[in-house]
């Protein structure tokens, strides 16, 4: 019977994870960690789910929690860390994006030192991969990461945090599982973890393919990773793939970008940050997650209508 800590429990994925763990007979106790007062959605789960308000970005908050009597009573043996599964407006995160990296580093270090935590499941994003030219490219877990110093700040933070967790894949007692999720679609049709969908400008002549996955499937994958004794890196994606134009903001604007190096050199125009994801598609292959974790998407994403009348539905597969 597992005792699980879940960080950022108030995030859309965090909610799903708590619900999934609540119904999981192999989980004895769930302690959700969040920065806000106890969210009301936890009320029905009080028999098994507890909540602790804590600002993980602050070292002393984490230290006091880890050395408290509460923590000793809970004795968690697993941790699910969801730092980036929040809505894209990261301005709301105190300390901004870098604090999410530092809290990840701190949590990993403390988990290694505490020794009571055996399993660490970290939710990353497929946008850590280096995009290569093409409308849609299948990427496996072996694809290199995009160490582009000029990239989007959020993507750089993802890569940093991913590397922090990768550092514990081998050589420590911690069983680390990194799940790199495609664009997460919530029940209300919002997107998480997707830089290409976060802004309205799109370069003309490019329409990259984006893999999507339901937040429920992501929660399932996290729970599967928690129980499977298979540390490693796994891609998580649903069955559907859509071009950016189908998913992006309905009032998206096209910006002229001829994509010809000579022309851009001629006008001395440096590519805008994050532009690679606006041009080139990343479609993660979830084959390894299927084989090792038994992950199979149970929800499919449907896009209906166009423009302002567009509707995105999450439908359970038969």
């Amino acid at each position, binding site marked *: 019977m597992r005792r699980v800590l879940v960080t950022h429990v108030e995030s859309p994925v965090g909610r799903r994870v708590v619900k999934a763990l609540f119904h999981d007979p192999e989980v*004895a*106790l769930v*302690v959700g960690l969040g920065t806000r*007062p*106890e969210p*009301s959605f936890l*009320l029905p789960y*009080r*028999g098994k789910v*507890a*909540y*602790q*308000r804590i600002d993980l970005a602050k070292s002393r908050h984490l230290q006091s929690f880890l050395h408290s009597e*509460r923590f000793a*009573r*809970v004795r968690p043996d697993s941790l699910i860390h969801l730092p980036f599964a929040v809505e894209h407006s990261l301005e709301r995160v105190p300390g901004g994006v870098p604090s999410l990296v530092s809290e990840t580093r701190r949590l990993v270090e403390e988990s290694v030192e505490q020794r009571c935590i055996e399993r660490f499941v970290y939710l990353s994003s497929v946008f850590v991969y280096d995009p*290569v*030219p*093409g*409308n*849609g*490219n*299948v*990427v*496996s877990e072996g*694809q290199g990461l995009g160490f582009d110093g000029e990239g989007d700040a959020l993507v750089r933070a993802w890569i940093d945090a991913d590397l922090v967790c990768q550092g514990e894949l081998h050589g420590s007692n911690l069983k680390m599982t990194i799940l790199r999720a495609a664009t997460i679609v919530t029940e209300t049709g919002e997107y998480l973890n997707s830089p290409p969908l976060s802004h309205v400008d799109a*370069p*003309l*002549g*490019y*329409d990259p*393919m984006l*893999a999507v996955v339901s937040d429920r499937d992501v929660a399932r994958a996290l729970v599967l990773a928690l129980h499977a004794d298979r540390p490693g890196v796994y891609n998580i994606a649903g*069955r*559907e*793939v*859509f*071009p950016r134009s189908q998913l992006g903001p309905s009032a998206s604007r096209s910006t002229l*970008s*001829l*994509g*010809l*190096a*000579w022309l851009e*050199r001629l006008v001395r125009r440096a590519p805008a940050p994050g532009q690679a994801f606006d*041009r*080139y*598609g990343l*479609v993660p*292959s979830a*084959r390894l997650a299927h084989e090792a974790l038994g992950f199979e998407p149970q929800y499919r994403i*449907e*896009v*209906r*209508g166009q423009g302002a*009348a*567009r*509707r995105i539905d999450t439908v359970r597969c038969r």
Partner: protein
Amino acid sequence: MKRDDLQTLGPSLGSDPFAQGDGTLPYLIRLRERSMRIVAEPVARRPRGEPREEALEAPDLGPPVPELPSYDDRDESAGALDRLAGLTLTSEEEERLAQLMQPLGGRPYDEFGLSPRVTRRALAFFKLLYRYWFRVESSGHSVLPEKGGAILAANHGGVLPFDASMIAVDGALAAQPPRLVRTVVDRWAGTLPFVNVFYARVGQIMGSRDNVRELLRANQLVLIFPEGMAGVRKRAAERYVLQPFHLGFVEESLRHRVPIIPVAVVGADDQAPVLWDVPALAKLLGLPFFPITPTFPLFGLAGLLPYPVRYEIAYGEPFRFYDEFPPEAIEDPHAVRYMAERVRRRIQEMVDQRVLARRAKRA
């Protein structure tokens, strides 16, 4: 763990869910109260003496909101291009196309961006080129597997890749059963605006190992030009002389145990003979090569259009190296080069036979 233990964890655990420190009511309570207010709102009484009102009619909210169309529905509301495609394609060809798109399982796009709708339009256009511009003659379709995956290795020529499109159309319209041919495209093409999207929508893929592996696992036909860019930039004097092969296609064939089918294409090297390649201009413009042909750059971009030459496509007997060599051979570069060379020689023989036959016919 008992519930008592949970309660000792802190004030937020197991405490009264309806109590909140700041005096405001929790959301659930507020919601409940609001709904109660709505329900309990007093109804205004009818004053005495007033006539009883007729039963209230439902407010006129206009016509019901129509169900939003799905992708399938949208396909039926065809545009001008779709209607044109419908006029060009016969019912048998439409059936073949439907068979090709079966692996998508109703999805609007596959992993690489293939769209059935765009493919239908493109097939209608390229069918006209196949029949009336290039007047393609093809032979040897029986070697194409009915279901399994395979690598088609072909010679490359012409400035624009019409040889790839003709092989793809041949696979769709002439093979029995129809097979979707997925061409591996140079990565440079993936950087070009509009071109990269078009290629993806009609089923072409960018040159990466992951892409090829994914398609072979899905039992698809993958067309590779092992000569690479050297094939299209070779000068007219070297027409139909195959350039050295890259080796990746042999490695993937061994890894996935799929046959390599040699494909000879005659005609592509005549569609736009390259007189000179100007590397300095190519470097300046960021292009892989800069060809000078009899019509380009004399007539601008229109000069790149292919001449109406006859095409011949021939499929040869498959190479099954995985039966001849042990799996460790993939690690041996000499063995892999030997296998690639065998394929190259076979394609060269097939091309030579057809070129000689053409010359004899002309003579």
